[in-house]
């Protein structure tokens, strides 16, 4: 374990931006899974409309969070050296690809905007996020990425 903290490049007053942004897309994608399940069980269009907004907002906010994260990743070689860094980056890029596909699936009208593929992709997104999120937390709480000296 290094006895110094890898430095965040995208930061405001020494506060790394990336960890401030990531909760938003995560909440959107988890929410979309819940509203997809609600639509699947009820066929009530309101839930699938919620899903459309949540998935779309998740993609947009996810891209913004990813930009901040990539700046950190590229900005300090000591970050790239951490074991969880690569799976975190690649995993989250996959999350964004899956969520983007899911966004288009959710533009279908009525039932097939969710069942079966919208719901499946929403679930895959959340499962992937559990893994990539774990890697992200490891980088901060175990490898002290962006933590002040």
């Amino acid at each position, binding site marked *: 374990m290094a006895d110094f903290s890898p430095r965040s490049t995208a930061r405001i007053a020494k506060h790394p931006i990336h960890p401030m942004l990531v909760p938003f897309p995560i909440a959107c994608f988890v929410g979309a899974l819940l509203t997809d399940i609600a639509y699947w069980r009820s066929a009530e269009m309101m839930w699938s409309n919620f899903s459309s907004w949540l998935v779309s907002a998740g993609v947009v906010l996810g891209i913004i969070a990813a930009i901040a994260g990539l700046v950190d990743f590229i900005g300090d070689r000591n970050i790239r050296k951490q074991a969880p860094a690569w*799976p975190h980056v690649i995993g989250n890029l996959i999350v964004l690809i899956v969520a983007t*596909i899911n966004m288009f699936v959710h533009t279908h009208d009525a039932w097939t905007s969710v069942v079966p593929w919208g719901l499946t992709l929403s679930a895959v997104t959340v499962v992937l996020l559990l893994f990539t999120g774990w890697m992200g937390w490891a980088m901060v709480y175990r490898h002290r990425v962006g933590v002040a000296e």
Partner: protein
Amino acid sequence: MTRAYFRTGLTGLAGLLLASACALPAASADDFDPMSQVGPNPVLPEPQQYLFPPMNIAKAVGWKEGEKPTVAPGLKIEALATGLEHPRFLYVLPNGDVLVVESQGPGVEPVKRPKDLVMGLVMSIATGSGGKGGESNRVTLLRDADGDGKPETRSVFLEHLSSPFGVALVGSDLYVANTDSLMHYPYKEGDTKITDPGKPLTELPGGPIDHHWTKSLVASPDGSLLYVGVGSNSNITENGMQAEKNRAAIWEVDRATGRWRIFADGLRNPNGLTFEPTTGALWAVINERDELGPDLVPDYMTSVKDGGFYGWPYSYYGQHIDPRVQPQRPDLVAKAIMPDYALSSHVAPLGMAFNTADSLPAKYKGGAFVGEHGSWDRDKFNGYKVVFVPFKDGKPEGKAEDVVTGFLDHNLAARGRPVGVAIDKSGALLIADDVGNTVWRVTPAQQTAAVK
């Protein structure tokens, strides 16, 4: 360790792409012949749903000086009136005066999903020059008493209407179908303007949403009943079943009392309501559902049976189930009637008129002219023309043929788009063009000589 994570990720990605590729087939080679979907037994491919649905709508450019549509041999076309504001429907009064219904959609459809924002943008490109922002939602009267194709009188007949579409006259009672009400006005032969504010005979399903807003109208041959086309409030129930109450139907309204009932339903967007002259059966042209692929579902024309159910939303073309509708209704699907005659997919028929006059060449007698507004959700344009469907003994007989084309220019931009069609007192075919803001008049090619 890094490498292990890496491999897991890549395997996962490959699996996902494979899965989504299976679920969402890519656009197939577009070698499908749209003419195979013209006639009583259209070829119906398997439904497809796209990741990136094809959206291709002709950009509106309007007609330049001297440009006009192309007509079939033996015919000639001239503008009867230009500079109109989004003309959608035509009605010929007994004295030969032509009513032009100029109409704009109510524009009350809310943004419910991010998709609605994108769709709104695409549609605004298409209708860009449809109306120059001037006065619309009115009826203009054209009087061409000497029949030379140049109206001597042009007046605003009725104004300040609410997205009007259908018009019908019974004796001295004139009816206008606004998007939200069926209005009654007194009319005297020769009137060029109606100042009476009118009385509603019945309300019609308008907002909220009002997705398909055009209310087609026809009076029964004996004049006692009115038939109103009421389109669905969505493509395929994506606004919820509650929004579809009394919609996707043809209403029968008692003219004396305003009491109404559903005459037939399961008709997604019925327009061009008209009675077939030999059998007296009610016919309509129907805009079918979108986003099941470029070649589904064919729009159609059909005789409409009392109490008939024609499938929407649960099924199309008889018993073909639409996977997008839940909960399904097998009881209704079982009794869904197969329509009489397909017009090809996404051609968007909005007007129909039977020709009983002798003016046009004999082969056009007895059949129906259909105005096809044109496609927006397939790569290759379909429609954007007026076709003729020959009839024999009150049934379509043979393939529809092109009568008026050339609404798209060489760059596939829309100079015009046909909507309502009518036969005028002289027997000429009239076409409302809501992008070119023109009413076109089609006559036999040799008629000029005859008149002179």
